[in-house]
């Protein structure tokens, strides 16, 4: 305790205190007076008495000094003094200081901001208890590696499983919420009873679903998301127990989920409903074992690894396959960490971005180091003088270290502030619907992990920036500082080390430029992939019809009515309906068999789209053979017909004519006659391969929610409001949402979005890297020129012409540039190979990109060296020599 108390007092003593100084002076004066009195009394003369008293005290000044040292902390005091001196030194050189601080803060800002994303998305994406134990469970077949589990299989899994402490399931649900102003579409999620207990989430209001609440026929209850509670119910605490009508069914609100709860796969869910209505969805398909509609989520038992759980699930799936061969043969199970499933898409991109930010930081650090080297080189003389005046080497080194620390402190603080701003900027740039899929990004913050990361960078930078000049100092101390520092021979240390650093910078800039170039080219290739349709002048709208008393006949009538009304809108050329828009997913699939061919039990899961007669015409798809559907095909009484895509025809009818042949759903004997073959339409994400797919008439199998596609001769944006208005005229209870042009659907598709954001961000890094690298090179060449002024003067005095001076300077720069580019190109091929997962339609060693980058960098670098070379060539030899 005592030392601590003394320490605190001494720390407080660092604040200058006039009263304390005065009291000390008084006390010593009193001391001397008493001593003098005594001395006079013992017979000394007043002068002698005073002299003796001061001598005995050991000097007034040294006493005061010793006292002061004790009252404060000399070490800290010195440090403060050093810091003040450092700040003064740095302010004397504002250009250097601003450049160094700005560069460090740029590098810092980029890496900290990106790390914050990595932290939010990869380190802690799941706001649940013990997220490491959480796994996603899938059914899997050859055609559908991560497939939904069927309701009945899920029930059997749950019964037989021994390795999970709990196993639950969830599924999509789209509702129409009845509000006083009409029906509004609202996202829901159906979950098994233990879903929230498995995640470790407890409602903040009301109760969780009780065990058995997901038994078919249990009462209709609902948990509200925090946002739904706030936005739809005004955050009223008495909401529990109230009724809410979702798609014509009344549900009782039993609770509200916490504000921080989010479930990324269903980010926008407002209503959480127990999975107790298997007959209400997908036309009652969940009552069949072959209807794959759920996603499994489970918590591993203590000490059980994912591999063990996977093995266990495979055994269960195998048993089910033997028990129910019709529906389950060929199906196995897969278990993945939930984190990976939640943030899987952006994981590689974030790693690339983090790498890019790291490289940028590297360039910045190298740049500052070489600036520091130049600076200490030009301070040789000052240092030599200070050394000669008695400053010890350790004191001098401490001065360098302090200067480095002051630089780093300023750069880091600025960098951190910039990073915080950048994080907000970047999240603001993410569109709302993308944010719904990545709710964990809302947790983005300068939390302690991010700050620790920033601290680590600061520490590294501090070590680097204080060691560089200190090292330089100890290297050059063996030389005669005063003589050396005078003039003439350019710093040898600089030549040895400093100029080589710029090669690292240029090489790093090349790597970033190549990365950006490849990602940009991937994006271009992606956006120009043949998607089998003409996206311009195409408007889309999602329509949901309330399914009360909805019969097949009534639905068909409604569709006809909608399509007819839309056809009469001005500018509309054609229109159609589909269950699912292109560019969404290949995974909504049916198990198909070519009729008449023997089945050996293999699965042929092919994506299936139910479409209206005019749909393919409206899309601008290209018919290869046969015909499109006509209105007559909609009649359920007529024989069933189907259109294949090219991939299907090629795969199942190689070298044969498929038109007129028949296919059927596995297990049914309802044959469908093939009437047309259409060029592949990209039904899944842009970066996926085309797969065999089939199109069936919309009304052969009805859905109450569908997408409308309208081709117009006018600007498609102008059609949007008219579309919704027309539909509401027919029936105000029909909900419309997600109005978009096909071009924007294409641009905003997940694959395009991810590619675009990574291309832009890496492009930004690359631009900064190019700038920093070129500035670094400029600095190197300019410094070298300034050191060689006399040499140039002599050469010119001896008759060298300007061209040979240019040559002299540019040759040196040329070597550095060439080395940087060659090393950079080699490293970038390696780096691009690492990120080839993000490349689309372009190889890691794409020659045009490499060539373009080399050219751009060479030109920029030559320009940066030309400016100082010009200065050297315009030296007046007389002045250059006189100045020396």
């Amino acid at each position: 305790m005592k030392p601590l108390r003394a320490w605190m007092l001494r720390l407080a003593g660092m604040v200058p205190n006039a009263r304390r100084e005065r009291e000390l002076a008084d006390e010593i004066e009193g001391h001397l007076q008493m001593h003098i009195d005594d001395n006079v009394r013992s017979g000394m003369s007043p002068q002698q008495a005073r002299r003796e008293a001061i001598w005995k005290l050991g000097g007034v000044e040294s006493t005061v000094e010793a006292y002061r040292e004790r009252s404060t902390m000399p070490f800290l005091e010195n440090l403060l003094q050093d810091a003040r001196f450092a700040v003064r030194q740095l302010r004397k050189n504002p250009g250097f200081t601003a450049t160094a601080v700005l560069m460090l803060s740029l590098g810092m800002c980029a890496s900290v901001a990106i790390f914050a994303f990595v932290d939010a998305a990869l380190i802690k994406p799941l706001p649940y208890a013990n997220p490491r134990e959480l796994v996603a469970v899938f059914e899997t077949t050859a055609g559908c590696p991560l497939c939904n589990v069927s309701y009945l299989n899920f029930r059997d899994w749950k019964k037989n499983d021994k390795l999970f402490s709990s196993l639950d399931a969830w599924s999509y649900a789209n509702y129409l919420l009845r509000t006083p102003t009409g029906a509004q579409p609202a996202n829901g999620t159906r979950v098994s009873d233990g879903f929230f207990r498995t995640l470790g989430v407890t409602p903040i209001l009301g109760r969780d679903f009780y065990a058995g609440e997901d038994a078919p026929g249990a009462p209709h209850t609902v948990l509200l998301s925090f946002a739904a509670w706030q936005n739809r119910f005004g955050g009223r605490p008495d909401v529990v127990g109230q009724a809410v009508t979702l798609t014509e069914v009344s549900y009782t609100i039993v609770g509200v989920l916490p504000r921080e709860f989010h479930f990324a796969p269903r980010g926008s869910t407002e209503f959480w409903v127990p999975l107790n209505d298997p007959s209400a969805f997908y036309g009652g398909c969940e009552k069949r074992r072959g209807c794959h509609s759920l996603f499994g989520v489970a918590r591993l038992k203590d000490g059980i690894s994912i591999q063990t759980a996977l093995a266990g699930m495979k055994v269960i799936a195998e048993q089910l396959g033997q028990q129910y061969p019709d529906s389950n043969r060929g199906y196995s199970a897969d278990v993945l960490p939930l984190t990976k499933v939640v943030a899987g898409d952006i994981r590689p991109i974030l790693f690339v971005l983090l790498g890019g930010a790291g490289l940028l930081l590297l360039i910045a650090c190298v740049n500052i180091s070489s600036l520091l080297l130049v600076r200490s080189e030009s301070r040789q003389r000052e240092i030599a003088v200070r050394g000669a005046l008695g400053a010890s080497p350790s004191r001098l080194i401490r001065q360098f270290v302090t200067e480095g620390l002051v630089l780093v402190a300023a750069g880091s603080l600025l960098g951190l502030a910039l990073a915080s701003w950048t994080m907000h900027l970047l999240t603001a740039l993410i569109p709302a619907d993308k944010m719904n899929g990545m709710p964990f990004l809302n947790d983005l913050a300068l939390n302690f992990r991010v700050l620790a990361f920033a601290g680590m960078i600061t520490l590294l930078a501090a070590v680097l920036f204080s060691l560089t000049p200190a090292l330089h100092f100890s290297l050059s101390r063996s030389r005669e500082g005063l003589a050396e520092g005078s003039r003439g021979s350019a710093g040898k240390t600089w030549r040895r080390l400093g100029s080589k650093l710029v090669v690292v910078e240029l090489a790093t800039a090349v790597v970033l430029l190549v990365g950006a170039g490849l990602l940009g080219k991937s994006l271009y290739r992606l956006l120009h992939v043949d998607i089998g349709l003409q996206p311009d002048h195409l408007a889309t709208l999602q329509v949901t019809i309330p399914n009360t008393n909805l019969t097949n006949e009534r639905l068909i009538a409604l569709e006809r009515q909608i399509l007819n009304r839309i056809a009469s809108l001005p500018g509309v050329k054609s229109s159609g309906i589909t269950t699912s828009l292109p560019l969404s997913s290949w995974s909504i699939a049916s198990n198909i068999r070519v009729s008449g061919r023997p089945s050996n039990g293999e699965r042929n899961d092919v994506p299936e789209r139910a479409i209206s007669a005019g749909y393919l015409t409206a899309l601008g798809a290209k018919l290869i053979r046969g015909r499109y559907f006509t209105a007559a095909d909609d009649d359920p009484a007529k024989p069933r017909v189907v259109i294949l895509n090219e991939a299907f025809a090629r795969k199942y009818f190689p070298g044969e004519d498929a038109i007129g042949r028949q296919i059927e759903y596995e297990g049914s004997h309802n044959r469908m006659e093939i009437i047309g073959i259409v060029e592949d339409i990209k039904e899944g994400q842009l970066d996926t391969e085309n797969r065999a797919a089939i199109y069936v008439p919309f009304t052969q199998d009805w859905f109450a929610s569908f997408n409308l596609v309208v081709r117009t001769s006018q600007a498609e944006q102008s059609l949007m409001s008219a579309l919704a208005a027309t539909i509401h005229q027919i029936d105000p209870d029909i909900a419309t949402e997600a109005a978009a042009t096909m071009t924007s659907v294409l641009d905003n598709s997940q694959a395009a979005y991810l590619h675009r954001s990574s291309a832009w961000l890496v492009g930004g890094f690359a631009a900064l890297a190019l700038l920093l690298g070129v500035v670094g090179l400029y600095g190197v060449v300019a410094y070298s020129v300034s050191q060689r002024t006399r040499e140039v003067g002599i050469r010119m005095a001896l008759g060298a012409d300007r061209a040979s001076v240019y040559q002299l300077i540019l040759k040196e720069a040329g070597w550095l540039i060439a080395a940087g580019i060659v090393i950079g190109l080699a490293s970038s091929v390696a780096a691009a190979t690492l990120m080839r997962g993000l490349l689309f339609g372009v190889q890691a060693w794409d020659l045009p990109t490499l060539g373009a980058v080399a050219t751009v960098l060479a030109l920029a670098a030559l320009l940066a060296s030309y400016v100082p070379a010009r200065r050297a060539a315009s030296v007046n030899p007389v002045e250059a020599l006189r100045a020396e």
Partner: protein
Amino acid sequence: MSDKPEVLQGTLALMVLKTIEAMGPLHGYGIARRIEQTSGNLLSLNYGTLYPALLKLEQEGSIASEWGVSENNRKAKFYRLTRAGRKQLDKETRDWEQTTAILARFLAGSQGPA
């Protein structure tokens, strides 16, 4: 004067505390004189070194100070022992006695055979 022993490192604080205990509240000059006298003028004390020592003891809370007037009417800071200081004095006295006793035994032992 130079042949007199300097004050042993670390013992000055103990001497100060003991002096204040024996004399009651006392100013720096008084403490210095008293230490010299008590040592029978065998110690050479640089009076200036006393003040940082007093400050240290005060920072540690062993002594407290207040301004007063000396016996011949000079303004002076008087130091008095605090309760913590008394405890510290007791402890350091015991420690010191133990140290000297051990050292004495060593010195006595090495004298014998020689």
